[in-house]
């Protein structure tokens, strides 16, 4: 991936890149509705999304087929990770791990 591609990527996801990634991580251990996703992310990442940001990210993920809405539970739709979403999340986390390993290795040798 060259530098030009990276620039286009960031433009496409904009401020919803990190919320989208955290939502995928939240859904990795089972379906959740919006409120549960917010609480879960607040628990493991210490970040609390506003409702506008949360649903802008959910809409993008759903539009790209990375998550699916299940039947409504009360008024709230739980969402689940799709196979495509799971593959994408695995790939992204592997990439993050690789970067983290390099960083830790360099810090250890510094």
């Amino acid at each position: 991936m060259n530098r030009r591609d990276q620039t286009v990527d960031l433009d496409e996801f904009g401020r919803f890149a990190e919320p989208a990634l955290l939502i995928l991580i939240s859904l990795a251990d089972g379906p959740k509705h919006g409120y549960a996703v917010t609480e879960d992310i607040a628990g493991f990442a210490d970040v609390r999304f506003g409702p506008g940001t949360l649903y802008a990210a959910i809409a993008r993920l759903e539009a790209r087929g990375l998550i699916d809405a299940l039947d409504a539970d009360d008024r709230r739709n739980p969402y689940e990770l799709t196979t495509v979403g799971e593959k994408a999340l695995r790939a992204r986390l592997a990439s993050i791990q690789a970067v983290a390993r390099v960083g830790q290795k360099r810090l250890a040798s510094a």
Partner: protein
Amino acid sequence: MTWLLRLYPPRWRRRYGAEFRALIAPQRFSIGTAIDIIGGAIDAWTQPQSHLSARAASHPEGETIMLARVMRLRCAGYGAKVTLVDGLKGAGVILGGTLLTVPIALWLRRSGASSYALTLCINGWLIFYVLSLRYTTLKGWPGRTQAVFMGALISAILALTLLAGWVGRT
């Protein structure tokens, strides 16, 4: 805060309205949450995701494209970080705008310009404040969302300013 839901497009409300209402109904009003919801509404109008969904579903290489797209997600913290440089840029816009409008306002006062021009110039720094938001509060939002948000605020400032000019004239 559920009334803010009316700001979203009808199509978006039909899809997410009920669960969005359930999410925000128990929350107490806060400026930060209101701005977030308004930003989300502008985003929903300017970047409707349902169109993308229909296109992706009919695309024969949809899965590959989806994977390629999601792999572009960034890691680390959440949202666009407002750096010191961003803060300085925002402050620069406000200060620059103020330094520009003050002498013009003084000159207009001396030359006996109309009350409209004078009030517009006096309140001009507010417009520069709104423009500075793109480096701070609105940083990271899509360009069109920023434009709509800032355009609406500037329009409101202009309307109030002209109203004040009219009141000052009568």
